[in-house]
C-alpha cells in the first residue's frame, strides 16, 4: 500500500487520509442517496395512506427510531403528524415509560402532547431532570391550556396526586378551575391533585366533588379526601353509601368508613327503607357486628327485596347456621325467635344452612329444622333430618317436651317427603311396631302416595293380634285404594278363627264397613256377630251409606234366620241406622227365647225412644235371666224417661232386689246425661254407704261440663260427709274435673279451698303443675306458679319452693310468698340464700317474708 502511495507521489499518511476522505465521500453520497430515497418515500407516504402502509412495513417504528433526530427535523418541515402516522411517537412514549429519558420526554411534548403529555408528567415524577422540561412546557403552552392537554392525555388514569401536588402545586388555581371543566377526565385529573391540597378553596372544591356527575371522581374523593371535619366526612360517605347509584362508589365509601370511621359507624337502620336500605345491604361486611345487626333487622322486613340480600349475607357469614344449631329447647322464646328468623330467610329461598343439620344432634336444632322443612326448603334435606331425628329418639321416649320434634318431622315427610325420606319413615315404622306412643304419631302421617311402600307393612300390622294401635291403623288403611285392601280383608273374615283372632276379625269387619262398598254388604251383615254390642252403634252409622232398599231386604231376610247371634247383632245395629221399619220384628223379639236377642231388643227399642214401652221396660227388670235384668237396668238408667227413672229409684231402694240389678241400674244412671240421674246418684251416695263403690264409679263417668257443673254445685251445698265422698269422685275423674275445680278457687268460695286443694293434690294436678315449673316456656312457668300459690296447700307451696332459682323474678316473688306461708327450716334456708339475690325486688320480698315469719314465731 505504501508503494502505491509512493507511486502516486504521496506519503503514506496523506494517502491514508485521502482514502478515508474518499470512503467518507462515498458513504456520504450513499447516505444522501439513501436519505433522499427515505425522504422521497416518506413524502409519498404522507401523501397517500397506501404508501404510508408500505413505508411502515419497510420502516417499522423500531427501525425508524434510529432516525428519530432526522424525523424530528423532517417533522418541523412537514408537520408533526408524520411522527404519529409512522408510529414513531407511540414508540417514543413507550420508551419513555420504560426508560424515563429526557430526550424522549422532549420529543413527546413537542410532537404529541395531546396524546402523551401525561406520560411525560409521570416520567417527570421518576426522573427529576425531566421535571424542568415538563414545567417549561406548561409555561410555554400556558397553564390553563397545558393542564387541559395534560388532563386530556391522562384519560382517567390513576396517579400519585400528592407527588403531583408537590410538582405543580404552584398552579393550583388553574387546577381548581379545571374542576369545573365539562370533560370528566379533566375534572378527574384536577381532583386527584387538589384533594391533597390543604387550602380551604381546594377543600371546598373537594366537598363539591362528592356531587360530581362522574363516578370515578366521587370514588376518588371517597377514597382519598381527608379533612378535620370527621363527622361531616363520615356523613358524606354514608350519603354515598345509601344514595350513590354506582356500586363501585358505594363500595369505596363503605370501605373508607370501615377503615377510617369505625368509631362513628352506628348506622340508624330504623329510618332506612327502600333503595337506600337495599344499597346498605349490598355492602355488608362479614366481620362487622353492626352489619350483622343490620342484616338481622332486614331479615325480618316485609319487603322481600330487602330481606333477600340480608338473608344471603347472614348465610355467608354463618349467622343462619348458628341460629339453627344454637336453637335450644331450654329457652323456648329463643327457639321460636330463631325459627321465625330462619323461616324468614326461607321465604326468600335461602335455605342452604339446613345442610348443617346432619352434623347436629341438638333437639332444639332438630325441632327448628323439622318446622322449617315442613313448609319449604330443599326436600332432599328431609332425609338427613329424618335420620338425625329418628336416631335421636332411639334412646329416648316421646316426652311432651320432645314430642313436637318427632311430630313436626312426620308432618313434613307426609306433606313434602321424597322417596328416600318415605323409606326412612317405613324403617322407623317397622322399628316402632310395638310402641303405641310412636305408632300414634307415625301411622296417621303415612301419605296415601306411599301405598306400594307402606301397605304390606300396614296389612302385616292388621294381621298381628298384639298390634297396639289398631284404631289409628284402620283410619289410615281407609285412605288406601280398596282394590289393594279387599283380598286381605276377605282372607281374614273367611279364614278359620284359629288363624285370625277375634280382635283381628273385628278390625277387618270395621275396615270393610268403612270402605262403604255396596257389593260387600251381605258379607258385612253376616259377620256382624263378630262385633261386641257396644260397638254396634258406631258401626251401624256407617251402614246408612249403603242403599236403603238393598239393606232392608237383607236385614229382613237375616231376621228370619234361626241363628240367634245374627238376629241379636242385626237388632243391635238398627238404632244406629235410624231405620224404624223393623219395629214389629224388634217388639216381637222381646219375647224371644234367646236372652241375647231379648237384651238387644230392649236396648234397640229404648234407643228408638219407644217410651210407651215403660211397662215392658220395667217388667223386663223381673226377667228370669239375671243378665237380661242387668242390661235392662243399665239401659233404663241410660235412656229412661223420668217415670222409668223413678221406677229405677224405687228398685234401688228395694231391699228385696239383688245387688247385680241394683249395680246395673247405678251403672245405667252413670251412663245417663240427665241432671235427674245425677241427683239420684248423689242422693243415694249421701244416704247409703253399701253401694258407695258402684255409686262413685257411676259418678266418675259423669265428666261432661254440664254434669261437672252440677256436681260442683252439689259439692258446694253438700254436708261434710257427702263432700268427703264427692272428693273421691273428683279424684277418680282425674284431669276431667281439674278445670272446673280450679274455677272454684275464687275468694268467694275460700272456705272450700282445703277441699279443692285436697282434690287437686289427689288427681295429680298439683304435681303436674309443679312439673310445669321446669318448663322452658317462662309464661307457662309463671302460670303454674300462680296456680300453686292460689292453691295454698302445703304440697303446692313445697313444689313452688323448687323454683327458688327460676330466672323469672315474678316466679321468685311467688316462691318467697310460698316460703312465708310454709315456715319450714328448709324454707328459712332458702330465704337466707334469697337475701343475696341479684334482684333488689326479690331481696325486698325476702326481707318481707323473713320479718313476717319472725313476728309469727313470737308468742
Amino acid at each position, binding site marked *: 500500500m505504501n508503494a502505491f502511495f509512493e507511486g502516486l507521489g504521496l506519503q503514506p499518511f496523506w494517502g491514508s487520509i485521502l482514502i478515508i476522505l474518499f470512503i467518507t465521500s462515498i458513504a456520504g453520497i450513499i447516505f444522501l442517496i439513501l436519505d433522499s430515497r427515505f425522504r422521497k418515500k416518506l413524502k409519498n407516504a404522507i401523501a397517500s395512506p397506501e404508501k404510508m402502509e408500505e413505508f411502515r412495513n419497510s420502516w417499522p417504528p423500531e427501525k425508524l427510531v434510529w432516525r428519530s433526530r432526522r424525523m424530528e427535523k423532517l417533522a418541523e418541515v412537514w408537520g408533526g403528524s408524520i411522527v404519529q402516522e409512522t408510529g414513531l411517537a407511540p414508540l417514543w412514549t413507550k420508551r419513555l415509560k420504560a426508560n424515563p429519558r429526557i430526550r424522549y420526554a422532549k420529543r413527546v411534548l413537542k410532537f404529541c402532547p395531546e396524546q402523551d403529555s401525561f406520560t411525560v408528567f409521570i416520567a417527570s415524577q421518576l426522573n427529576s431532570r425531566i421535571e424542568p422540561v415538563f414545567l417549561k412546557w406548561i409555561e410555554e403552552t400556558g397553564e390553563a391550556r397545558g393542564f387541559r392537554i395534560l388532563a386530556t392525555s391522562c384519560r382517567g388514569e390513576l396517579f400519585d396526586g400528592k407527588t403531583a401536588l408537590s410538582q405543580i402545586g404552584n398552579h393550583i388555581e388553574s387546577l381548581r378551575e379545571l374542576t369545573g371543566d365539562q370533560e370528566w377526565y379533566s375534572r378527574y385529573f384536577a381532583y386527584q391533585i387538589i384533594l391533597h391540597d390543604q387550602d380551604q378553596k381546594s377543600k371546598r372544591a373537594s366537598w363539591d366533588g362528592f356531587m360530581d356527575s362522574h363516578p370515578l371522581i366521587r370514588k376518588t374523593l371517597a377514597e382519598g379526601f381527608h379533612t378535620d371535619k370527621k363527622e361531616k366526612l363520615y356523613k358524606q360517605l354514608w350519603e354515598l353509601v345509601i344514595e350513590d347509584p354506582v356500586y363501585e362508589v358505594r363500595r369505596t365509601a363503605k370501605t373508607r368508613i370501615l377503615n377510617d370511621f369505625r368509631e362513628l359507624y352506628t348506622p340508624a337502620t330504623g329510618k332506612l327503607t327502600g333503595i337506600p336500605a337495599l344499597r346498605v345491604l349490598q355492602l355488608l361486611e362479614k366481620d362487622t357486628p353492626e352489619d350483622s345487626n343490620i342484616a338481622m333487622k332486614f331479615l325480618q322486613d316485609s319487603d322481600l327485596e330487602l330481606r333477600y340480600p340480608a338473608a344471603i349475607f347472614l348465610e355467608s357469614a354463618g349467622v343462619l347456621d348458628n341460629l339453627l344449631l344454637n336453637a335450644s329447647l331450654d329457652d323456648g322464646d329463643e327457639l321460636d325467635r330463631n325459627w321465625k328468623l330462619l323461616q324468614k330467610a326461607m321465604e326468600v329461598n335461602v335455605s342452604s344452612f339446613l345442610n348443617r343439620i346432619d352434623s347436629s344432634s341438638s333437639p332444639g336444632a332438630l325441632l327448628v329444622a323439622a318446622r322449617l322443612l315442613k313448609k319449604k326448603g330443599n326436600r332432599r334435606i328431609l332425609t338427613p333430618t329424618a335420620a338425625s331425628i329418628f336416631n335421636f329418639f332411639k334412646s329416648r321416649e316421646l316426652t311432651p317436651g320432645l314430642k313436637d320434634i318427632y311430630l313436626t318431622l312426620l308432618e313434613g315427610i307426609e306433606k313434602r317427603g321424597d322417596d328416600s325420606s318415605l323409606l326412612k319413615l317405613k324403617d322407623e315404622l317397622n322399628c316402632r311396631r310395638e310402641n303405641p306412643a310412636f305408632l300414634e304419631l307415625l301411622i296417621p302421617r303415612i301419605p296415601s302416595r306411599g301405598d306400594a311402600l307402606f301397605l304390606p307393612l300396614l296389612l302385616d300390622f292388621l294381621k298381628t293380634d298384639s298390634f297396639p294401635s289398631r284404631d289409628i291403623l284402620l283410619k289410615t288403611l281407609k285412605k288406601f285404594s280398596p282394590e289393594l285392601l279387599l283380598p286381605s280383608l276377605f282372607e281374614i273374615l273367611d279364614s278359620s278363627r284359629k288363624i285370625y283372632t277375634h280382635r283381628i276379625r273385628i278390625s277387618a269387619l270395621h275396615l270393610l264397613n268403612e270402605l262403604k262398598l255396596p257389593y260387600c254388604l251381605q258379607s258385612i251383615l253376616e259377620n256382624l256377630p263378630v262385633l261386641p254390642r257396644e260397638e254396634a252403634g258406631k258401626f251401624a252409622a256407617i251402614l246408612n251409606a249403603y242403599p236403603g232398599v238393598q239393606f232392608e231386604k237383607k236385614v229382613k231376610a237375616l231376621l228370619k234366620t234361626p241363628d240367634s247371634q245374627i238376629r241379636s247383632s242385626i237388632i243391635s245395629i238398627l238404632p244406629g241406622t235410624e231405620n224404624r221399619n223393623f219395629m214389629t220384628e224388634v217388639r216381637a223379639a222381646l219375647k224371644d227365647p234367646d236372652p241375647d236377642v231379648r237384651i238387644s231388643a230392649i236396648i234397640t227399642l229404648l234407643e228408638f225412644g219407644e217410651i210407651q214401652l215403660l211397662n215392658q221396660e220395667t217388667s223386663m227388670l223381673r226377667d228370669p235371666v239375671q243378665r237380661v235384668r242387668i242390661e235392662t237396668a243399665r239401659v233404663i238408667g241410660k235412656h229412661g224417661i223420668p217415670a222409668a227413672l223413678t221406677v229405677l229409684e224405687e228398685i234401688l231402694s228395694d231391699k228385696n232386689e239383688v245387688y247385680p240389678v241394683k249395680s246395673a241400674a247405678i251403672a245405667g244412671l252413670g251412663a245417663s246425661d240427665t241432671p235427674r240421674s245425677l241427683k239420684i246418684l248423689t242422693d243415694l251416695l249421701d244416704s247409703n254407704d253399701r253401694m258407695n263403690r258402684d255409686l262413685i264409679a257411676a259418678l266418675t263417668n259423669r265428666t261432661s261440663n254440664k254434669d261437672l257443673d252440677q256436681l260442683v254445685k252439689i259439692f258446694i251445698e253438700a254436708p261434710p260427709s257427702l263432700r268427703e265422698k264427692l272428693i273421691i269422685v273428683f279424684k277418680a275423674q282425674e284431669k276431667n274435673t281439674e278445670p272446673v275445680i280450679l274455677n272454684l278457687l275464687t275468694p268467694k268460695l275460700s272456705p272450700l279451698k282445703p277441699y279443692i286443694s285436697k282434690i287437686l293434690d289427689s288427681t295429680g294436678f298439683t304435681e303436674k303443675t309443679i312439673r310445669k315449673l321446669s318448663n322452658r316456656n317462662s309464661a307457662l312457668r309463671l302460670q303454674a306458679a300462680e296456680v300453686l300459690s292460689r292453691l295454698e296447700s302445703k304440697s303446692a307451696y313445697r313444689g313452688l319452693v323448687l323454683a327458688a332459682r327460676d330466672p323469672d323474678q315474678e316466679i321468685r316473688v311467688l316462691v318467697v310468698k310460698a316460703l312465708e306461708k310454709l315456715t319450714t327450716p328448709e324454707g328459712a334456708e332458702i330465704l337466707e340464700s334469697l337475701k343475696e339475690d341479684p334482684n333488689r325486688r326479690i331481696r325486698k320480698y325476702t326481707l*318481707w317474708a323473713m320479718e*313476717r315469719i319472725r313476728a309469727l314465731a313470737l308468742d
Partner: protein
Amino acid sequence: MENAERILVERGTENEELVKAVLILSRESDYNILAEIIVKLSLDITGSDLAAIYLINDLENNKKSYNLKYSRGGNTLPDKWRRDSELVPFIEECREAVIVMSPDSPGSCNPFCEALLHCKMNSGIVLPIFGRETLLGLLFVNSRKYEFYNRSRFRFLDSFTKLAGELLGNSIYIKKIENRLKRLEARKEYNEGIFTSLPDLILILNRDGSLYFFNEAAAQCIGLSESDLKTSIDELLKKSFSRETGEDIISALCNNEKSASFEGIYKNHQTGIDYRLNISPLCSRNGEREGTTLFFTTQTRELEK
C-alpha cells in the same frame, strides 16, 4: 297437746278481741268515723304507741296518693304517702301487710323503714286496707318497743283490717248511692220547675191513658187538682173539651200516632183559650213508649201581643 291447747286458747282470745272490735265498727257507716275507729281500736287493742290511717281520696284518679285521715300517738306525721315512695308500691303489688321488727334489719338497711312513722318507733306494721278488692288505704301501727308485733297482734291486725276494709268499702258504696239519689232528686225538682214555670199547658199521660202529670198552667186553666191524677183521659176530655175535639184527641192517642196537632178554642167558666195542641209520644231511652205528652200552646196571648 299442750301446745295445741295453748294455740286454741290464744286463738280464742284473738277472736274475742276481733269480734268486739268488729262489733264496734259495724255500728257505724260514716266513712270518716269508721277511719277514726279503726285507728283507735288497732292502737288500743294491740297496745301500740302510734297508729295512723292513710286513705285514698279520689279512687278514680290514677295519680292517687294516700292522705292522712286520722292518727293517734304522733304529731309530726307525713300528710300523705305518695306512690313513688319505696313502701307503697311494694304493698300495692304484694297486697299483704309489711312488718318491721326493728329499724335496721341485721346486715342491711331495711327498705321498709318508712313503716316507722316516727324516729322513736322501733317496730311497726303497715296493713293494706282493701274494700271490694280495691286498695282503699294503709294502716300504720307502730310501737316504741323492738319486736313488739308478735303472732297474736299480727293476726289480730291482719284480720281486723280485712274486715274493716270491707266496711269502709261498703261505706263508700252507700255514700255513692246517697249522692246519686240526691242528684236524681235535684234533677227531678229542676225538671218540674221548668214545667211549672211554663205558661203553656202540659199534660203527661201514662201508657194506659191515665193522667200522670200536669203543670201549674194546666191546673189553673183546666182546673186540675191532685185528685185528677190517674184519671182517665176520656173523662178529662169530656170534662174540658167539646165532643169533636175530644174524639179527635182520643183517636190520635188510640192510633198511636207519632205526633199530631190540633187547633181549637177551649172555653172554661172564666175565659176562652185559643190553643194549639201537640200530641207526642213519651219514650224511654231504649225507645219503648211510656206514655204521651199533650202540649197546649195558648195562642190567645200571642194574638193579644
